[in-house]
């Protein structure tokens, strides 16, 4: 019997493959801002609800604004990259500037229960599906 390493790396590999696969999905296609705008987003489903993850390294919490209405979410803010005055630059790869992105979810969101978390340069939005939007199972009489 082959020894199966239940190592964490295979879990990561599976995640990366799953992410690649859904990269070609047409979900959210009709959004107002479309794909390719900053910041890039990943949308996950967690049970009935949705989790949106955005990579936003180096942004102050106070420079971020998030708005939710019905099924659309807007994330706007400013990313600053600063250098001391007397420094000699060797490499400059980090970008700075302003961003504003809206996305339309295909379902209604319960705006009052949306939670946002910003930790380690990742913005996580927890979007509960609106109660009225949840599918109802119908019993046959």
């Amino acid at each position, binding site marked *: 019997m082959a020894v199966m390493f239940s*190592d*964490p*790396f*295979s*879990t*990561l*590999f599976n*995640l*990366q493959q*799953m*992410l*690649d*696969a*859904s*990269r070609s*999905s047409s*979900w*959210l296609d009709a959004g107002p801002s479309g*794909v*390719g*705008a*900053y*910041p*890039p*987003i*990943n*949308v*996950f*489903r*967690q049970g009935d609800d*949705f*989790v949106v993850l955005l*990579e*936003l*390294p*180096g*942004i*102050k919490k106070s420079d971020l604004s998030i708005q939710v209405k019905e099924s659309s979410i807007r994330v706007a803010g400013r*990313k600053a*990259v600063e*250098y*001391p005055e*007397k*420094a*000699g*630059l*060797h*490499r*400059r*790869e*980090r*970008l*700075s*500037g*302003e*961003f504003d992105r809206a996305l339309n979810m295909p379902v209604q969101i319960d705006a009052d229960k949306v939670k946002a978390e*910003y930790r*380690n*340069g*990742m913005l996580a939005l927890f979007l509960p599906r609106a109660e009225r939007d949840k599918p109802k199972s119908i019993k046959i009489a």
Partner: protein
Amino acid sequence: MAKSQELSVQEKKEIASKEESTVPARYYVPYTDIYETEDGLIVVMEVPGVEKKDLKVDLEEDALKVEAQIDFKKYNGLDPLHTEYNVGHFRRSFTLGSKVDRDKITAQLDDGVLTLTLKKTKEASPRSISIS
């Protein structure tokens, strides 16, 4: 430089490594700024999603190696529906041009941005020589 510059998406670069690792996970290159001040080098790296405990900074001879692991356990129970970026560990190394005092390296992680401050050794810092 205009302040109201528009941010564009920087596609993550995957590491093209000379040797392959035995595990198939992918590594990415963190976007990095490097600048030099009078007494040292400052290396600023973007490693979104990395916790402080999962960072490793190594200095061997002139090679500075940074490895940052993401904790993908957080993705348990999440089913991807729409994705625009991939997730992976970060790794990058640099060859330092000037001598660095390895005991005086400090690292700080704020909002997914790692700042390394490398102090130059005394021999490497510029000194003025007076002509007698």
